[in-house]
């Protein structure tokens, strides 16, 4: 599979505190890649670096063009949708307005059609359309965030801990849907997770990040069968 996104020697810092120390990774077109790591390893920062939300050095290539140093809104417009840490819900706005904002860069007519696809994956959002988004449950907000991201019609979907704070059953539902989105729309996905079992199950490639350094890279199956990974991250 051709590579869609590649980071080379990527550094990132918040002010004076350096968080990523020159990491390399790539995301293949049409595939699911997961980035694992413990609390504070720098997973969220990696996604922020891709979206231009932190100061970085090094190179990030997306679909054949350098995107490092570009403004966040331009990176979104280039086709990278980012479901951020904490889901990024527009709490004060309705579910429908949240979804409209996802399609902000798209023509109005496309929105209607794309919305039907989103309801296909998340029928519950249709029932909640006129509700204030802040009143949704955590799981519904996660679904709203993914729906909002899909409406950008991205080439790459970045997901920051989609399982965070959700009940186990809801987590499985969300991952099933992500798997479907990947297969049915050939959507390329980079997912950050602490729930390594679930993430590895839907991924082809996997990376392991430890305090800002990439310590392991390979197929998801390789990482899943690795003794050290199993002991530290999979719990068996």
């Amino acid at each position, binding site marked *: 599979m051709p590579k869609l996104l590649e980071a080379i020697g990527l550094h990132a810092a918040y002010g004076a505190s350096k968080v990523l120390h020159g990491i390399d990774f790539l995301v293949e077109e049409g595939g699911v890649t997961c980035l694992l790591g413990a609390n504070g390893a720098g997973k969220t920062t990696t996604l922020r670096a891709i979206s231009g939300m932190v100061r970085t050095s090094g190179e990030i290539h997306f679909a054949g063009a350098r995107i490092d140093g570009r403004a*966040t*809104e331009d990176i979104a417009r280039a086709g990278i949708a980012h479901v951020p840490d904490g889901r990024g819900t527009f709490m004060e706005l309705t579910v429908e307005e949240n979804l409209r*904002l996802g399609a902000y860069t798209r023509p109005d007519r496309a929105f209607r059609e794309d919305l039907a696809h989103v309801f296909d994956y998340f029928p519950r959002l249709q029932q909640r359309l006129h509700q204030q988004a802040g009143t949704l449950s955590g799981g519904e907000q996660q679904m709203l965030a993914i729906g909002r991201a899909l409406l950008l019609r991205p080439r790459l979907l970045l997901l920051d801990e989609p399982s965070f704070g959700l009940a186990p059953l809801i987590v499985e539902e969300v991952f099933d849907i992500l798997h479907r989105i990947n297969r049915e729309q050939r959507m390329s996905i980079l997912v950050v997770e602490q729930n390594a079992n679930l993430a590895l199950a839907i991924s082809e490639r996997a990376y392991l990040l430890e305090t800002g350094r990439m310590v392991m890279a390979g197929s998801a199956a390789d990482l899943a069968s690795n003794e050290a990974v199993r002991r530290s991250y999979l719990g068996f």
Partner: protein
Amino acid sequence: MIGLLHQILSGLVTGGIYASVALALVMIYQSTHHVNFAQGEMATFSTYIALALIEAGLPYWGAFLATVVISFVMGAVIQIVLMRPMANAPVLSSVGVFIGLLLVFNSVTGWIFSYTIKSFPSPFEASRPLLGGFLSPHELGATVVTLVVLAAVYLFFRHTKLGLAMRAAAFNPVSSRLVGIRVGHMLALGWGLAATLGAVAGMMVAPVVFLDPNMMAGILLYAFAGALLGGIDNPAGAVIGGFAVGVIENLGGAYVVGTELKLSLALFTIVAVLVFRPNGLFGRVLVTRV
């Protein structure tokens, strides 16, 4: 009874002016979490520009439209030049910038246009009293203009993509950027719109109160009281609050404290709201589940 009705009606007329300025304050507050103390002086400056254009020979409505456009640009430029660099500044320095802006506008206005009180024309027929003498044609016309502007602003924010993006950028700039919204542009547009609202209010009130560099000082206080009363983060509430303060002011002035002490009613309203309902009557109580 007739007298009371009269007081309420003319309270609603001035209330419209307060409502426009209150809405301008809320628009800026939502994106900056600061009250733009200079909103009134900006409006006064705009009104002087309108007068200069009229004196230069432009027909009234031509000058009106030109002033709306000039004020919009002025508001947007202030955001880009002064406010953007202050985005992450501590609270006190932001307040300092707003106060500084107020003083600069006030003295520049006085310096360019002089401190003498000037009369300002009304586009509406001056003489014939309407509605059995209850309202002058100017009062009625100014209220219609104000309501049209408020309705247009409402429709713009509720029913256009750009209006939605501006609200989103004010509430949640980070998520807005992630969906491709150019947040900087939205904030500049917001300042432009707020300045426009102030300009229309200034042009509508100037024929009544006469034009001088401090014309909007009292009005800003009433508008602020209205915004607080309705909820400083609720545009519709602020508009209702503005109208309410107009009525309170008039009734209080006529029946309670007398015209001389009317302004103290604004202060009293501010204090009462802050003490009893800090979120205002319609303040957004954000419902969230985590």
